[in-house]
């Protein structure tokens, strides 16, 4: 079946512009996660959705970052007024049930110039 998909695969933006990153989880997966991997770093948790609500936003680095999920499916991560330190690969993952692994999408590589 189809895996987690993300778009765009690459995004280059100018400092100060807003960007939207999209994630389509695996059908039927109720839990959705956003992570990011900065250059030379491990993966860092950003936000978790259960259905359409986000019980854990503790990883969002600043109030310039926000995310929503609609219909228990697609999620959008929005970064306002992008900064160079926002450059990273943004990864989305979904999970079917509590005691199971998360499945990752291919990521969106964001470059802020």
């Amino acid at each position: 079946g189809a895996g987690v998909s993300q778009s765009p695969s690459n995004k280059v933006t100018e400092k100060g512009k807003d960007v939207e990153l999209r994630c389509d989880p695996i059908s039927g997966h109720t839990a959705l996660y956003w992570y990011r991997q900065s250059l030379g770093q491990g993966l860092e948790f950003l936000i978790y959705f259960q259905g359409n609500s986000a019980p854990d936003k503790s990883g969002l680095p600043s109030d310039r970052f926000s995310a929503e999920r609609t219909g228990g499916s697609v999620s959008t991560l929005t970064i306002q007024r992008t900064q160079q330190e926002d450059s990273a690969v943004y990864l989305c993952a979904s999970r079917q049930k509590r005691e199971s692994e998360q499945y990752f999408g291919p990521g969106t590589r964001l470059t802020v110039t």
Partner: protein
Amino acid sequence: DQQVKQNSPSLSVQEGRISILNCDYTNSMFDYFLWYKKYPAEGPTFLISISSIKDKNEDGRFTVFLNKSAKHLSLHIVPSQPGDSAVYFCAASGIKAAGNKLTFGGGTRVLVKP
């Protein structure tokens, strides 16, 4: 503070030999551990997991060992194959905690030489 650490950034091994990757954690609330493999320009792919009620889990060429008292886990790959060359991430979560978010180590780059 890094709650999950992979102290070896890289590992080189001959094809057919065993690869051993190590991971240490500090948070005693973690009770579920996973290993992911990542190729360049792709998302991480799940390899194997282990619950804290076990000390070993095996799946084909991959075996994960958990030493709870030492807060240490390891991944053994045997025999290693050239296609195993990738970055391997150790991850941990707390099943009892809301969300099961994963905390990742920094990764170990494995190179399997033919």
